[in-house]
């Protein structure tokens, strides 16, 4: 298998499309997707359920064939070079996929052996993660808590020191503390030079990535660093609040300067219509201009996309 020339990008996806046929309807899971992931970086795919994230992961891990386009992982074509790719990637599917009737240690041992390595050989890489579940090494994997399961799955995906790591929604269904720990670990792994592609439905995790791609209905809406994504957002956003939040939501739609309004925690966010004058809010409403977050950008992009 000839190695791809570009050594800078660990993952290259160009114009990949994939559709499923369920019954008589054809569903476009991915529609002309292109992006690159720099070697040694942490790249986030942010999007709601059903956006096509898992399909993309399966294509990149050589588990799924696609209709159009080309995809390269670590210099190998995912279709023709699948054997080479399977040796150098680590993959953690969205669903817990280890053996629930095997203990923590048996699982790790087994996955080490199928990659023809041993736990000892790469122990330093997984030490920080595995040390946390090692006290439970004789417990069956099915009896672990959600957070511990994820740590075990990550250990198993790392045991052969992959060059590219694919994590499909690793923090879904995991408590807040474990989520934070998990992202800390990803930062450590990045230091080791491992390229990480991670997907998540949680917007707050986007800020922890080097670059994020916002994905919705099989299309990429935007790719940038988290800071740039929010900084380059051209629209102005105010947060508003009063004593009748529900009525306010309806009322605000009538304001001349409102382009869009949506509930956001304790406030509603009002996107100001481009070109509108400085908004003047009716009395009794607590309003203030804010910096847009990733969520705001995403909601706006989704709206544009739907129109």
């Amino acid at each position, binding site marked *: 298998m000839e190695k791809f020339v570009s050594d800078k990008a660990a993952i290259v996806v160009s114009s990949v499309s994939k559709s499923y046929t369920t019954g008589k309807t054809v569903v476009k899971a991915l529609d002309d997707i292109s992006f690159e992931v720099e070697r040694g970086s942490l790249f986030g795919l942010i999007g709601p359920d059903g956006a096509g994230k898992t399909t993309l992961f*399966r294509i990149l891990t050589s*588990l*799924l064939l696609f209709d159009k386009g080309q995809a390269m992982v670590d210099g190998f074509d995912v279709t023709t070079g*699948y054997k080479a790719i*399977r040796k150098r990637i680590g993959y953690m599917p969205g669903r817990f996929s280890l*053996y629930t009737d095997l203990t923590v240690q*048996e699982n790790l041992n087994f996955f080490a052996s*199928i990659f023809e390595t041993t736990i000892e050989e790469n122990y330093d890489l997984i030490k920080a993660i595995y040390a946390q579940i090692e006290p439970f090494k004789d417990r069956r994997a099915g009896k672990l808590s959600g957070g511990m399961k994820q740590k075990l799955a990550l250990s198993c995906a790392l045991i052969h020191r992959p060059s590219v790591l694919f994590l499909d929604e690793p923090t879904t269904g995991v408590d807040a503390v474990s989520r934070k720990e998990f992202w800390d670990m990803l930062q450590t792994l990045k230091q080791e030079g491992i390229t990480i592609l991670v997907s998540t439905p949680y917007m707050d995790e986007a800020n922890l990535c080097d670059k994020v791609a916002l994905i919705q209905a099989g299309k990429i809406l935007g790719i940038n660093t988290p800071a740039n994504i929010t900084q380059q957002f051209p629209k102005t956003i105010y947060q508003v609040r009063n004593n009748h939040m529900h009525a306010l939501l309806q009322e605000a739609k009538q304001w001349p300067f409102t382009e869009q309004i949506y509930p956001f925690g304790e406030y509603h966010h009002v996107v100001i219509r481009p070109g509108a004058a400085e908004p003047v809010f009716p009395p009794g409403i607590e309003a203030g201009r804010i910096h847009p977050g990733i969520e705001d950008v995403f909601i706006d992009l989704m709206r544009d996309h739907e129109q």
Partner: protein
Amino acid sequence: MKQFYHFIIKEFYHIFRDRKTLLILLGMPMAQIVIFGFALSNEVKNAHITIVNQSNGAASMKLVQKIESSKYFETYNQTTQTSDIEKMFRKGTIKVALVIPPDFDNTILAQNNSRLQIISDATDPNVATTLTAYLSIIVADFQKELNQPNRIPYTIDVETRMMYNPQLKGAYNFVPGVMAMVLLLVCTLMTSLTVVREKELGNMEILLASPVNPLIIILAKAVPYLLLSIINISTILLLSYFVLDVPINGSLVLLFAVSILFILVSLALGLLISSVTDSQKAAMFISLIAMFLPTVMFSGFIFPIENMPLPLRTISNIIPAKWYFIIVKSVMIKGLGLTLIWKEVLILTGMMLFFFTMAIKKFKIRLS
């Protein structure tokens, strides 16, 4: 090789940690042997009979005693009213009735010619035919005894010899059948389920994204079930030899060798099923409906193949269990050697190679 070893270890963990399934797998052959040996038998024993003896002479009493002392019949109710017979048939309390008319003793002595009537419940035609035949034989025997002093001329004595199974034991037929059935269940059903389970639970997703050769995944699944099946064959043979008195006339080594060949055929079939299905439900359906039922019907174990119409006889040729059934009967009961069963062995070997090749060829190296 190390990969393969770890895979097998893992399969054994799966099997040993699922205690209930393991218990069923090891207990099933014993249960089947016991059920077929003692409960489900088509041998006729102790059938309820009513003898309507209206004659009550010396000769008729002797005949009644002769019937009662036979192990095939058990007198249920003595009556002198022929009208009672139908009532008893309707209630289902008797299977057969013998009517001895009032003039039986007189006619047999005076005219050398008398009549008896056998009435049987033919709702089950096989049982009715068997019972009528047994009863006729007893009567014929009785007649011979009467003629003892003055032999009638020109009698033909038919001497029957039941080769290989003189006592006509059903066990000689069903033990090979049970062996084929158990092996097919354990190997085909269980193997197909265990591979498909990994697909359903998502384990396969990680295995496929790893450098493991599909051949290793497939073969490692088969090894533990091969060992389990050898244990099962041993229990079946021990039980049938010591409990059911079925002899092992041929070579035990040959018997085990052909059994392992059949196990490999069943394993290959199970792996093929798992390669082409994606859910345990589908795998179970194919194994049971498409494999198990034809095995029971077309192996010759319950229904004789010779009596089937040509299309069904042709179909029976593609059922591996048919050939195994023939081999086991030949080796175990008839005591034949390899020289007389090589054709069947060759067919099974061909089937095994075909199924294994197909299973590996059809194994999906990607999802869906």
